[in-house]
């Protein structure tokens, strides 16, 4: 019974995760090219500084992810001037929850560090935004989360 209950919880978690993703009446548009998606998103001006792509191995170290956690990983990081970040993963649906949890843990750490370091950055961390679509996961800490929401609405329309 316990095993079945755990399985039920897992299915429920996946269901909840999927329900948080942007959805519309039409079938979800797949993100065929994570890099192009990221460039489009960053071109909206949602981020106050130009984020730079870092080596995936370093990104994994930073986030505490195994190098094989996802089939594709893109880490766009700040120069250090702000707390802004944008990360994208392509992974199997069953791994999505775990990766999202890792992103949220990092966000919590960042919040605690920035609280005394650059408190003005904390609201950005609090207004983090994430979405899943098919096999893609995005987690972002933008300067303007509304611009990200607008972009996603337009992208998946």
């Amino acid at each position, binding site marked *: 019974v316990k095993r079945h209950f755990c399985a039920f919880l897992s299915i429920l978690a996946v269901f909840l995760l999927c329900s948080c993703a942007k959805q519309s009446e039409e079938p979800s548009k797949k993100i065929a090219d994570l890099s192009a998606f990221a460039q489009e998103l960053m071109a909206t001006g949602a981020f106050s*500084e*130009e984020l*730079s792509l*870092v*080596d995936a*191995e*370093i990104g994994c*170290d*930073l*986030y*505490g*992810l*195994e190098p094989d956690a996802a089939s594709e990983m893109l880490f766009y*990081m700040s*120069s*250090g*001037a*702000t707390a802004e970040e944008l990360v994208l993963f392509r992974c199997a649906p069953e791994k999505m929850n775990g990766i999202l949890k890792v992103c949220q843990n*990092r966000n919590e*750490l960042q919040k605690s*560090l*920035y609280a*005394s*370091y*650059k408190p003005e950055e904390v609201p950005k961390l609090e207004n983090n935004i994430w979405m899943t679509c098919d096999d893609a996961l995005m987690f972002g800490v933008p300067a303007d989360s509304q611009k990200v929401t607008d972009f996603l609405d337009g992208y998946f329309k």
Partner: protein
Amino acid sequence: MGMLLVLGGTLVLWKPHLAATSVLDTHISEPTAASTPEPTPEPTPLYRESGSAVDADTYLQDGRKVEILPGQSYWGMERLAVTVKEHRCRYMTGSGTLLPDYQCGDPVPESEAVEDEWFSDACFIGNSLQQGFMLYGGLRTADIFATQSISITNIYYEDVVNTGDGLISIMDAMAQKQYSKVFILLGINELGFSKGYFTESYGALIDQVRELEPDAQIYLESITPITKAESDSESMFTASRVNSFNELIRQLAADKEAHYLNIFDVWVGEDGYMPGGYTADGVHPYPRFYPLILDYLKTHTITEVRK
């Protein structure tokens, strides 16, 4: 210039253009230093050689200094006695050039560039600028533990390094492995400290690093420059404090037998400030400028001569 060979613990001097006619392998080991009960400050003659194949004041690869005393003529060339001072030269560049005049506290001088592999036994620790170096510097052979907000006080206890199983402090992360080189980049977040507290706390950190990494050379990287706009603002970041704290770091290097790397020079403009076009916030340069730090580090290497 001739060549100097050490074969089986004996010294052989060889001058190519004379090798065919000269007998230059008459090496006589005279371990007088070992047999002398009390060492003297005078040069210790370990070897005496016939033949002139080295210049006075040159150094052997193990750091001993060669002195040539007037001798007698030998087969058409001057016969010289060669005296070797033991371990007179303590430091050399990463590419192997001896640095007889270098002392800890001097800025590490420029030298021939080493390969990235030179850093394979190195650990870098520090603040957001060190993290920038980790993200954008392009060095993949070293371990780097750094993040924003780290200072000489919270580096011990702020759990910021993600091991996959949880978070640990930078000092704990470093202590998991024995390194030969430890590079420390701290100081910008401490500009609000009193100079006395800064010196005391940074000194204690160096002591702690030495305790955890007893075989490591310790490199203190200078605080990097800030823009004039930042310096003129109301913040604690002022160019004069950066300069005076860098002087404290240089003095710490001298006092603690560490090496001072003046990376300040990498990003500074002619006016003594970081150019405004380098940075968004006046302190952190754009990613494209971090490889310049790696270039600097590769051309400013120093290590202890192997005894």
